[in-house]
């Protein structure tokens, strides 16, 4: 079999604003089926005419560019190919097809503290890690004090790494990552490290680097909070292709919504359903991504096969916070007897912050006992996205209610 490869070139052209250029990039892996990892297995496979591996296409023709000063977020579910993409950018994997051009000095952090050895001292580990990232000892000398200071480990550097707490180790590794002098930083989900004080420091650092127009950052993350906070651009990768390449807001919303649709919880404790209620349908008539002024409209229809009086129970369930936001029902407009029933429901959601909401619908009899319900995995989901946040810090997503109330300040 012929091995053809794509290319990855490193250039140094300060006049060009494009620091990363990816063109038609594809990558597949050969996943060995059972025994082909041993010589015996390979020979057997050869004799039987079996290939011995399965080809898995991980990236399918990606195209994008990163400009100098960008803070690009790459998001996607597990196994979507984002880490593979990062490894190709970093030069760890070879592109199978297509062209990758890196303009400038790229420092990859696929993992923090690569090559860290517990038997070496903190200082020795810093220099070893530095040499792996391509820095000379002289360059490391220049960065060393800053790294140690940022990690707040001045008193520990001559101790062996095995005597560091795990938090200290991570702090040291992270400090190398962000104090390393490179043009392009490539980071793989390494933001949530250290205690709260350290987090704040990192936060400040990233806000600073965001404004620095000479530094480019590519960040793979699962945290939409990080994407919204730091990135000026984002890419959503799904199943090896770019689904959206756009503003962090769009990408983060899309990602949250997708996940919300995919993961529906509480499948347990399902009540018994009545066989006399059939064809329950719940349809979302309005937008899937309403803002606080849009009307959320639902149409619920079902068929009653016996003489039961029924009404609709409705819950708006906050998927991320895992709690009900609102319960309501149509008990005051009870449906009598058999036949097809169609009920519509309309509301605005002016009070709450951005949320991913699932609409749970149940059909109950006049005593309030559930006869049937619409399954979670089919229930419509709504991604409420307000457009009246004055700025990003105004938006406290862990709170349910949109900010309200007046402060009255009296100064003497």
């Amino acid at each position, binding site marked *: 079999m012929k*091995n053809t*490869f794509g290319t*990855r*070139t*490193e*250039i*140094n*052209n300060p*006049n*060009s604003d494009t620091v990363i250029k990816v063109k038609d990039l594809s990558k597949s*892996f050969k996943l060995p089926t059972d025994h082909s*990892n*041993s*010589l*015996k297995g*390979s020979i057997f496979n050869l004799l039987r005419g079996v290939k011995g591996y399965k080809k898995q296409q991980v990236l399918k023709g990606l195209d994008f560019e990163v400009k100098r000063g960008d803070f690009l977020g790459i998001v996607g579910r597990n196994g979507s190919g984002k880490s593979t993409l990062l*490894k190709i950018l*970093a*030069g*760890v*994997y*070879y592109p199978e097809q297509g062209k990758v051009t890196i303009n400038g000095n790229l420092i*990859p952090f*696929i*993992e923090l503290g*690569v*090559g860290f*050895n517990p*038997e*070496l001292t903190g200082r*020795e580990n810093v*220099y*070893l890690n530095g*040499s*792996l*990232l*391509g*820095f*000379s*000892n002289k360059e490391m000398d220049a960065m060393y004090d800053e790294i140690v200071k940022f990690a707040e480990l001045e008193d520990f550097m001559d101790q062996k790494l095995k005597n560091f707490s795990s938090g200290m180790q991570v702090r040291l590794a992270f400090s190398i990552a962000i104090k390393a002098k490179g043009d392009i930083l490539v980071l793989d989900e390494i933001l949530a490290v250290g205690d709260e004080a350290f987090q704040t420091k990192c936060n400040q650092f990233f806000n600073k680097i965001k404004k620095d127009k000479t530094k480019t950052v590519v960040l793979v993350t699962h945290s939409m909070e990080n994407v919204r906070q730091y990135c000026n651009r984002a890419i959503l990768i799904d199943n090896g292709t770019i689904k959206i390449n756009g503003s962090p807001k769009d990408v983060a919303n899309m990602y949250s919504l997708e996940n919300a649709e995919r993961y529906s919880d509480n499948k347990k404790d399902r009540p018994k359903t009545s066989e006399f209620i059939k064809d329950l349908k719940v349809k979302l008539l309005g937008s899937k991504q309403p803002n606080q002024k849009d009307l959320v409209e639902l149409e619920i229809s079902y068929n009653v096969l016996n003489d039961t009086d029924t009404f609709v129970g409705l819950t708006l369930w906050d998927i991320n916070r895992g709690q009900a936001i609102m319960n309501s029902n149509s008990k005051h407009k009870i449906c009598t007897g058999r036949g097809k029933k169609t009920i519509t429901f309309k509301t605005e959601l002016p009070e709450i912050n951005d949320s991913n909401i699932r609409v749970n619908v149940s059909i109950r009899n006049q005593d309030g006992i559930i006869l049937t319900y619409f399954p979670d995995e089919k229930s419509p989901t709504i991604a409420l996205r307000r457009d009246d946040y004055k700025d990003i810090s105004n938006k406290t997503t862990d709170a349910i209610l949109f900010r309200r109330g007046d402060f009255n300040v009296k100064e003497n």
Partner: protein
Amino acid sequence: MTKTPVHGRITTMNIPHIFNKKNRVLLSELTKTDFKLRYQGSVLGYLWALLRPLMMFAILYIVFAKLLRFGNDIPHYPVYLLAGTTIWSFFTECTSQGIQAMVVRGDLIRKISFPKYIVVVSATLTAVINMIINLIVVIIFALINGVEPSWTWLLVPFSLIELYALSLGISFLLGAINVKYRDITSIWDVCIQALFYAVPIIYPVSMVASSSVLAARIILLNPIAQTIQDIRHNLITHETITTWNFIDNHFLQFLPILIIIIILISASFYFRKKSKTFAEDV
């Protein structure tokens, strides 16, 4: 546009990049780490670098020189034996560390891009350092034993470089295969055992020659035998039988060196070709 493709960090062994500054620093850091960690946590520490071959020598000396009475016809036989075992341990350590290097350093290869040959070279350099320490011991023993210093001592480094080139070639070739087929480590262990008896370390070549001259000549065509005998010849006694004084055909005399060159060059090409996918396979 200043377009300078930096292949050095991705493809390996592009000659100008082998010894560029980045790679030199990385090589020395990795070697230092290897050496520091080798004897970490042992009471005698670096002393083991000396003690191990000396102990092996003691065993071989008792069994072969004292019990089986080999080498009665060779002057300074104990030192002659020690030199042989020292060079042999260098070869075995060098190759087994080199072959396993890619797997041992798998975590680095999977996460960072750097020329892969550095991993192999750094693993073998530890063996080189150990060998130099041991060679000093050999020289001290030789002087105690009454060996006269000679100008031919200056030729010893050439033989060592030759053997190192062979070890490196084997490490590149088998190391690259070992990334995918871990059987290589076990197969090489067996090869080492077989080679140990195929090379005149514990027995003198004269013993073989006395029953079959042809067999002795074939033994001496092995590059390992050639280098070990050369080192003994130049360091200990000029009475040592070597490829040069035992084989008359000029082409055959140079065959061991030719074998080494062919192995090193083809292994380097193979390693370079395979190194693109090491990160995925390891």
